[in-house]
């Protein structure tokens, strides 16, 4: 995940399952946020919220252990996201069961939230959104790194992109802010900036799903759809 050599996530997963320290670090860095987001959402307002850190750790332990999910992951059977989601959910249930046995359950709360259909669905969407955000964030970070290493035009294009999508400024306003009288110039730069970003987005999605070619765009679409869920 996120390596400059654009290894697929499966490559990283395999290396992590074999104990490769850098692969494990990349794995943790890439997936810690969606895992944590899911757990925080699931346990919001509950005593178990204090156990989020432990549970995140347990997810990684579950992934790394011999015969764990990393070893069993098969790209032919689908993307890694649902696999990871299953692990996170199981870890969450394990903590909830433990808490229930120790009497830590707050009155009136169910132990297995997944057993309530709408709750399970909502939790799944939480995970998906966090997942999507983490991938998109990575695409932005790759773009930022490339721009920083590039020329002034590259950095300007990124700035335009940020002004447009982070601050919501219309192109005309951007042009004025930049002191560029010709709005068309800014438009062109903006279009190039979008193409720059698309390259990084496709690379991130391809690495996370293992798909190649036109199917990558479909995955990109599905990823953004997760944001809307």
């Amino acid at each position: 995940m996120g390596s400059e050599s654009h290894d697929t996530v499966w490559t990283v997963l395999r290396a992590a399952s074999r104990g490769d320290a850098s692969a494990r670090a990349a794995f943790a860095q890439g997936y810690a946020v969606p895992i944590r987001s899911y757990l925080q959402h699931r346990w919001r307002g509950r005593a178990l919220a204090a156990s989020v850190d432990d549970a995140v750790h347990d997810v990684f332990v579950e992934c790394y252990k011999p015969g764990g999910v990393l070893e069993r992951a098969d790209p032919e059977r689908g993307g890694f996201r649902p696999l990871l989601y299953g692990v996170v959910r199981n870890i969450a249930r394990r903590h909830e069961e433990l808490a229930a046995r120790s009497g830590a359950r707050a009155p009136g709360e169910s132990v297995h939230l997944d057993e309530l259909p709408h709750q399970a669905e909502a939790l799944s969407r939480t995970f998906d959104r966090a997942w999507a955000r983490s991938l998109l964030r990575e695409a932005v970070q790759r773009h930022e790194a490339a721009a920083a290493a590039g020329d002034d035009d590259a950095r300007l294009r990124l700035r335009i992109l940020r002004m447009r999508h982070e601050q919501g400024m219309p192109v005309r306003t951007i042009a004025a802010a930049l002191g560029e009288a010709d709005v068309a110039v800014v438009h062109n730069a903006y279009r190039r900036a979008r193409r720059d970003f698309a390259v990084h987005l496709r690379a991130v999605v391809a690495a996370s799903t293992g798909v190649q070619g036109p199917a990558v765009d479909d995955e990109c679409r599905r990823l953004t759809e997760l944001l809307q869920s």
Partner: protein
Amino acid sequence: MQPPDQDGGDPPAQAADSGFERTLDQALDGGFAAARELAPPAGDSVLRHLEHRLGSRPAVSLRDVDHDTATPMLKPLVIGDGVERTTGKYVVHGLLGQGGVGAVHKGHDTDLGRDVAIKFLHARYRTDPAVLHRFVEEAQIGGQLQHPGIVPVYELGMANGRPFFAMKLVKGQTLAEKLARRASPADDRRTFLATFEDICQTMAYAHARGVVHRDLKPANVMIGSFGEVQVVDWGMGKVLERGGVADEKRAAELHSNLSVIETLRSSGHGTQSVMGSVMGTPAYMPPEQARGDIDQMDARSDVFALGAILCEILTGLPPYAGPAQQLIGMAAMAKLDDARARLENCGAERDLVDLTLQCLMPAPAARPMSAEKVAAVIHGHLAAAEERVHRARVEAAEAKVRAVSLRRAHGLGIALATVFAAGLAVSLWFWREADAQRSLAAQAAENEKAAAAIARAQRDQAERIGTFLAETLQGAGPAVALGRDTAMLREMLDAAAKRIDRGELAEAREAELRLRLSIGDTYRELAAYDDAQRVLEPAVALARALRDDGATARALRSVAQLLLERGDLAAAEHCARESLATSRRLHPGDHPDVANGLGVVASVLATRGGLSAAEELFREALAIVRRVQPVDHAAVARALNDLGLTLLSRGGAEAAEALLRESLQTWRQLHPGDHPEVANALSTLAGAQMTRGELTSAEALYREALDMRRRLLPADHPNIAMGISNVAMVLRRSGDLAAAEPLLREVLAIDRRNFRGDHMLVATSLANLASVCLDRGDLDEAEPLFADAAAMERRLFPNDHRRVATALHNLAVVRQHRDDAAGAEALFEEAVAMLRRLPELHPSSLASFRALADLLVERNDLAGAEAVQREALATARRVFAADHPEVAGGLNNLGVAVAARGDFEAAESLYREAVAMWRRLGAGDHAEIAGTLDNLAGVLRRRGDAAAAEALRLEAAALRRRPGAASGAPADGSGR
């Protein structure tokens, strides 16, 4: 930016890409939003940053150890005072106090989780450059002066346009409050002088850094709950090299109409700091400051203030005392007559009065140059005072002795134990501790809890005195032990004990306790039991009175050892158990004192015959010392020795020998050359080897031990007698009676000279000599010696005791030799009956059972003999390890009894079991092996197996022909 026609072909969006373009829009929006989530929040709080990144923040919260009730008072945060409840990372709790330019609040640093004091500049001065400048300088001074006596400033910042700085929240009381609580100026003077020295040291540091305080007073000195001194409120501080505040005079003129502002730390007699034409506190103000010659102020102005503080410490009032409105005038004119008169009449030492007067000289040039000079004088005064106190103590406790070395280790009271003695050196070198006492006193004086600290130090000091004495009494090494005279040692001990009895240490009870223990133990080691008891018994009461559990346990242990050696075993056990219980209460886990206590109880139990219980306790003691001491520690060596001897007594010779070898090795590591402990360990190991029948190596070790003792000890030392006796006994076992007897006569003579009257060692020497006489057939010499020994044992042990039973056995043996079977049987019966009444049988007692059984066989009471032999075998199996020569011997003897009534099958079984045990034991050339082989051969022959019988007979004959094979002489049951 490139113009569009030079853009390199940027086609407009195609319809075919419109889906992906929408995706891209969403991705860009989502991506930048997601990236912003992880961006550090504004305000730069590292914890907020961490929380944002990780979802959690570290939260360390340490225990607050400050139990001082004098925490800063808080006034509720007044609405409208302009201070926000949250200032950056600080949460402001309430107002601590108001000053001339600012207000100090209590706050909490949410990042570091600590309470702080936050001083906010008054809102009205926000635009005043001079005041602002001074406020910032105060913060910078506090931030740059790094000294334990100066409150550190953590941060300088702005909050809603108001400057503030955060500093350490000082909890405690001001010196002013403490001085005010005195009933008289003479109270706790030394404590306050020590505090004053700290103030001087702090100011010396500040002066060295070029900073003067200019508002020194007791109200600006905080004393924490641990006695730590801090000089606070550097608001009027001046940096000398830079010329101080930029525009002080103008600032003073601007604010000349301001009213006096009260500070929370100020109290009474015109001690308020004035923010006006004159800055400072009139009651402590040097004349140059009172006159407004601010630019003339330097370190000597602070020296005047130090003198003013010292004046208040000594007389109860600052130099200028009176109505507040008059004070500034008095200060300006340096009206110090009243102060001088008070100082002359305050009863303080001359040097303190002179120092105060010198500091209060109106002319700065006449004062000490800096606070460092004042600190040096105070330090010298305190040191001299402590020296005088200490010298008085030394003279009360001093005793000049010459060093004598004599050391003696303890007898353990079991069959093969030896009485140890070593060189003793006694020196009561209290003057050696003078430096330690002096430093202790100076150290204690610096601490607010000086009384408690001094008491602790005195206890530590007394402990050191006692330890030093005990160590010197134990002997530093062979050189100290050479050629010394116990008579001289007795003289020294007597002199010391007399002085203690006269009450010369009545003022130093803890020192008296430690000395009583050391002297008492030395008396005991010299066998001066009456003197030891006289010195030690009050030690127990004294330790209890001092509520010193550790010393109580030790005193009880010493008394227990004394009673053990005197033979009062019941009382010894009582004291030993109480000592152990006290040690266990004091030290619930592993501790050397617990191990020592276990050892003493075990020794008593072993002497009383409770070997199995003793073994258990010695094992526990060894385990503890192994856990708490280094592997080559003397306590480990002793514990190994104790357990080894016990195992030896119980028949575990092989296991015992391993422990005793390890003990010897440890002692050799601790003492590479000649040393009494090495000699003792050699002797003990030799005893183990003798038990296993390894007489040659045992003799070599005994001789090595004896030679070493002769080099270390006086000729008549009990340990020399012990060594000679050991060599004699191994010679006797080897059959060299001619060599053994003169040695045993020498031993008896030495013991009689050392122990005038009844003593276990004398009784043993009598019995040993009698045994050798009996061995060579001289009944006329042997019988009276055995009779004397028996009579002495009865006097020493009026009730049932193993030693009495042994003495009866010995007399019975003599009766046997005189063919007085009836008389012998009666004595054997009396001995066995006494042994049956004892709670636990000693292994050596089995000889009495066997001897009685033999007699019963002789008068054809075969059933009676068989019953006694069965009882003896069962006892041997209980007392000893599974395979043991005594058990093998018991099997053999029962076989004889069973064969005597014709049950040869049962006899053969018993003999075969005995032979197998002998072979497993590999006990060397033990005569009893040959005897059992012969017995088995006899039974086999009766049953018709002549060939097997012949083979066994030949084997027995070969064993008997081997050199060193024991003759099979009856055991006398005695031993040292």
